């Protein structure tokens, strides 16, 4: 267990010496997962709300698919995105394999069902009378949906937090489609795998501590979005 202590000390060293390599890895982690989160939220929140508020044939299987997607193994996502972006694959012409763009795509696929699923649950938890009330007050369907989302805000933020947690901590997909290339596609999780395989446990623990700290700080920031809803 002494590695944990060494790791803490090493984490301080790495952070406060402003080690440029560590900063580059940290920044790339945030860029990739941040970009993926924004894209997944922009798609997933509306999709989840729509699933919650609309009744249509085949809704049940679609919901089952979304729930299955919430448990998608990152390595499977990585494998499929790899095969798609490979120079021999259908999207090979883009030249995105082993670039951050490929990592963003994989993480969007992982985060999207998580965000959509939790958003749907949150929206369905809102009192169904609310829609009638605001509609009778003259709200358009669009305004009514916004009012419901406002009411479901607590759960929607949790959906986004869960999506972020799923991708910032994920290693299987980014390893496969990014390649863990130094100075180009190495993120915190793949760096941890590399350092561990090298036997450099203190550095690996240090990177793990940095990853946890960042996740904590991002979650604190996201919690502020919940705002007063959380205080009630």
């Amino acid at each position, binding site marked *: 267990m002494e590695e944990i202590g060494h790791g803490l000390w090493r984490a301080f060293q790495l952070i406060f010496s402003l080690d440029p390599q560590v900063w580059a890895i940290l920044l790339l982690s945030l*860029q*990739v997962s*941040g*970009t993926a*989160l*924004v*894209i997944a939220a922009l798609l997933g929140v509306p999709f989840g709300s729509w699933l919650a508020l609309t009744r249509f044939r085949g809704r049940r299987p679609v919901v089952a698919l979304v729930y299955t997607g919430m448990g998608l193994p990152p390595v499977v996502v990585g494998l499929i995105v790899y095969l798609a972006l*490979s*120079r*021999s*694959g259908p999207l*090979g*012409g883009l*030249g995105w*394999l*082993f*670039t*951050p*763009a490929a990592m*963003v795509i994989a993480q969007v696929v992982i985060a999207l069902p998580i965000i959509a699923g939790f958003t749907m649950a949150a929206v369905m938890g809102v009192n169904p009378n609310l829609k009638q009330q605001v509609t009778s007050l003259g709200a358009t369907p669009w305004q009514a949906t*916004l009012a419901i989302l*406002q009411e479901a*805000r607590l759960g929607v933020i949790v959906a986004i937090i869960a999506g972020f947690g799923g991708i910032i901590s994920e290693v299987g997909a980014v390893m496969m489609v990014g*390649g*863990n*290339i*130094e100075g*180009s596609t190495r993120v915190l999780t793949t760096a941890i795998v590399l350092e*561990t*395989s*090298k*036997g450099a446990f203190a550095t690996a623990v240090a990177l793990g501590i940095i990853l946890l700290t960042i996740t904590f700080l991002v979650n604190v920031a996201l919690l502020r*979005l919940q*705002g007063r809803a959380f205080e009630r």
Partner: protein
Amino acid sequence: MQKVGSIFIILVLASLAAALGCSRSPKSLTLATTTSTYDTGLLDALVPPFEKANKVKVKVVAVGTGQALALGERGDADVLLVHDPKGEAKFVADGFGVERQDVMYNDFVIVGPSSDPAGIKNMKIAAQAFTQIAQRQTTFISRGDESGTHTKEKTIWQQAGISPQGSWYQAVGQGMGATLNLASEKGAYTLTDRGTYLAYQRNLGLTILVEGDEALRNQYGVIAVNPARLPKIKYDLARKFIDYITSSETQKVIANFGRDKYGQSLFFPNASNN
């Protein structure tokens, strides 16, 4: 909602900045190589001068030799530096690669706990040591990942006339460094290239028990991926990299690599034009 909206705008701007960061690197060469050349730090010594001289970014993807060859087959790498002469010959014969050249060699060694429960220390023939490990059923960790090391291990089992199975034979499917750590934790035997072993020796409770058998030679080769198969493959740069790594200057760097740190060379250059 305004607060949510403004934070969304900030996030979108941040992601735009990130996207700009994504679209870069005008010229790059993808090198698929084995964990052994990467983990020892050899590529950190070889790649930067090449990048500088050719104004190119070399993207090093460090995987097992099996996966490196697969990346080459799909055209996802431009040049390979691997160590599985049989697999490499097949790769070239199947039309996936061109201009394979020897680069360097080192050797494999059989390592295990110093207590040596199978009693193989100082045996001269690797296949005999393997036979004894199998007979005594002492734990043996196999890479099990179609890497060059794994291929060599399978060849030695073949020479010994044994198809290893049972609870004493554990295939872990991990890189060399991770496999050494595992073997060390379990007090088990494993086959490793000498370079990776020396690089991680200080973290390990393993000693070299068998070495020097001609069957344990570990030859590295460089191959350009066949540009006739896919237009995107950067053959010219791959060709330059092959010329660079087999040049007499680079071969000298390889010969000296590791001497300051380990007191001995980790790789012995043997490119034919040297």
